């Protein structure tokens, strides 16, 4: 078990390292190391999942660990060259800053209590075994998409059509261990939860530089150390990874709208789109988020800057734009390949909704059930603590009010993206072909889980806007 855990740590480090290096090229101005590590982890996952998808497409998954090792060797080489040429720069890039012992101890205690439970229990939740776990097992035992699980009609009841990202990553770790080790792989799964903590801490540190440590800890316990976050932290569901992806992309869009110039915001927009693209490999909801996010990104560029600045930027930075778009298309290639494979293997997309002939009264009833469930879920303090209801109100109210404030409309974009994603979920429930009560009972809490970290980050951003306006005029920074 110890060896497997060590392998997991090495794997996570290589994956995060790859992301950090790519991030260093496309977006070097990420404010602090908390955010840099979290974004590096997400981008690293994108790189790795993309590589594994391509390998699976060519029936070469047995080379997965070789690819990981080559990636590690390349990273080591890069660091060595960087260390020789830019010693001082590198130190500042990876300098963790001042970390208090109390803070580390508290975080270790919080994560440790979850890990204790996770290491002693199997990956036994429904979707984990029925979808992601068995897929991971198939990618571990066989070398590509043309495997027993994806080709045999025996598995027709399972969602074989779902994206493969999480399963491929789990299979990579199984291949490192040489066996299916559910406990060791939980260390990888819980990294997503840890990254949500990093994103929240990093956002706080960025907007409120002098936030006391105890306040950060209280905020994390109040919002993120709640029953549902703990339950899904390493359960093997794809929802926690999706929550990290949404939160990372939201953070990038906040960074983009606060820079003030298109040249400065472009790296954040590109990083945001790339992190959102990771979602298409994880779950279907990731695809809708990617589409909404890409539209939001274009709207940020179109609404915040004048025609002159946009045409000037396009003229000056055409090569950068083309490189960025090419990188995005390249990373999406694995997703396109999976869509084509599904058609080849005759795997049908099982959508949870259908457009049948319901009466207006039935449709309205469906909508009231959905809204009632949303309100009940937000107010469920046993699941989410006491702060979700005020957070939901503040986040929604803040976004709507910013949308109607002409001079500050641009600041509403990150929040609007999250609200639009919620609208998509609502539409999916509205046209649900299942019994709506059952559908909501079995999935709503996980959909909330996708959006809460992003809403929290946006709320911190809104509080920072308010704090700036509360400051005496002479101390207020130019916004």
């Amino acid at each position, binding site marked *: 078990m110890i060896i497997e855990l060590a392998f997991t740590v090495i794997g996570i480090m290589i994956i995060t390292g790859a992301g950090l290096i790519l991030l260093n090229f496309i977006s070097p101005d990420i404010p602090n190391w908390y955010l840099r590590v979290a974004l590096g982890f997400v981008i690293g996952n994108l790189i790795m999942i993309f590589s594994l998808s391509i390998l699976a497409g060519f029936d070469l998954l047995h080379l997965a660990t070789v690819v990981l090792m080559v990636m590690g060797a390349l990273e080591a080489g890069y660091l060595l060259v960087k260390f020789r040429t830019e010693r001082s720069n590198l130190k500042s890039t990876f300098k963790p800053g001042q970390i208090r012992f109390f803070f580390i101890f508290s975080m270790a205690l919080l994560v440790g209590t979850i890990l204790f439970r996770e290491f*002693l229990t199997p990956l036994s939740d429904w979707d984990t075994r029925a979808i992601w776990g068995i897929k991971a097992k198939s990618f571990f*035992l066989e070398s590509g998409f043309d495997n027993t699980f994806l080709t045999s009609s025996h598995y027709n009841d399972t969602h074989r059509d779902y994206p493969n990202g999480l399963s491929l990553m789990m299979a990579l770790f199984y291949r490192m261990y040489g066996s299916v080790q559910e*406990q060791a792989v939980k260390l990888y799964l819980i990294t997503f939860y840890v990254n949500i903590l990093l994103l929240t801490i990093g956002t706080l540190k960025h907007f409120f530089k002098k936030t006391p440590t105890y306040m950060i800890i209280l905020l994390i316990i109040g919002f993120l150390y*709640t029953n549902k976050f703990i339950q899904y932290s390493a359960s093997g569901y794809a929802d926690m990874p999706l929550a990290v992806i949404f939160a990372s992309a939201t953070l990038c869009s906040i960074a983009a709208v606060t820079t003030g110039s298109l040249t400065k915001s472009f790296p954040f927009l590109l990083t945001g789109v790339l992190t959102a693209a990771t979602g298409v490999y994880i779950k279907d909801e990731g695809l809708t988020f990617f589409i909404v996010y890409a539209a939001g990104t274009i709207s940020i560029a179109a609404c915040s800057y004048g025609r002159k600045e946009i045409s000037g930027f396009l003229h000056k930075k055409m090569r950068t734009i083309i490189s960025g778009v090419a990188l995005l298309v390249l990373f999406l290639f694995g997703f396109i390949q999976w869509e084509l494979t599904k058609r080849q293997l005759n795997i049908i997309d099982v959508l949870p909704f259908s457009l049948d002939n319901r009466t207006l009264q039935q449709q309205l009833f469906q909508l009231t059930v959905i809204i009632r469930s949303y309100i009940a879920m937000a107010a469920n303090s046993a699941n989410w*603590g006491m702060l979700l209801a005020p957070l939901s109100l503040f986040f929604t109210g803040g976004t709507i009010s910013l949308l109607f404030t002409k001079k500050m409309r641009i600041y509403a974009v990150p929040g609007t993206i999250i609200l639009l994603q919620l609208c998509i979920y609502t539409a999916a429930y509205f046209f649900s072909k299942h019994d709506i009560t059952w559908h909501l009972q079995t999935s709503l809490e996980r959909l909330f889980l996708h959006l809460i970290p992003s809403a929290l980050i946006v709320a911190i951003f809104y509080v920072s806007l308010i704090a700036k306006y509360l400051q005496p005029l002479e101390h207020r920074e130019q916004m």
Partner: protein
Amino acid sequence: MKVNRSQSPPFLTRIVVSTLIVASFVSLFSFYDSKKGEYKQLFKTLISTSATHTLHALDPFDSMRMTAEELDTGQNSVFLATSDRSTPRFYWLKFQADYYFYPTQPTIFLYNSDEDYAYEIMNFTTPGDTVYSAEELVLDTDHFEGRQYTDYFEYERK
């Protein structure tokens, strides 16, 4: 009442901190309240046995798989039985079986309590698989608290 603007941030901070303290207490209490039984059980099992054994002890399906393998070594044809195909319970059992035996496809028996016989489910069996009658299967319902859809029927051959 006049408000001194320079005093408002510390006052606001105090409100925020107090709110966060209450909210954190609620989160910690909910965690303690809902998970204390589970943690107690984990500690107890861990003290009495090794981590690997704890895992097996806490995974009902794994022990079921082992029983099935003992009963029918190498065949993978005996795994489980359930009373109704239309319920989530049936699918939960099928997914467990699929997960454990992958890439082998195990036989799943449907136990019909009304007509009192067990029969093969179409598409889930291959020619030559052993089919057991109801007399050969003794069903015993067990429930695991705190988990969704984890009702299962454990069986043993008479």
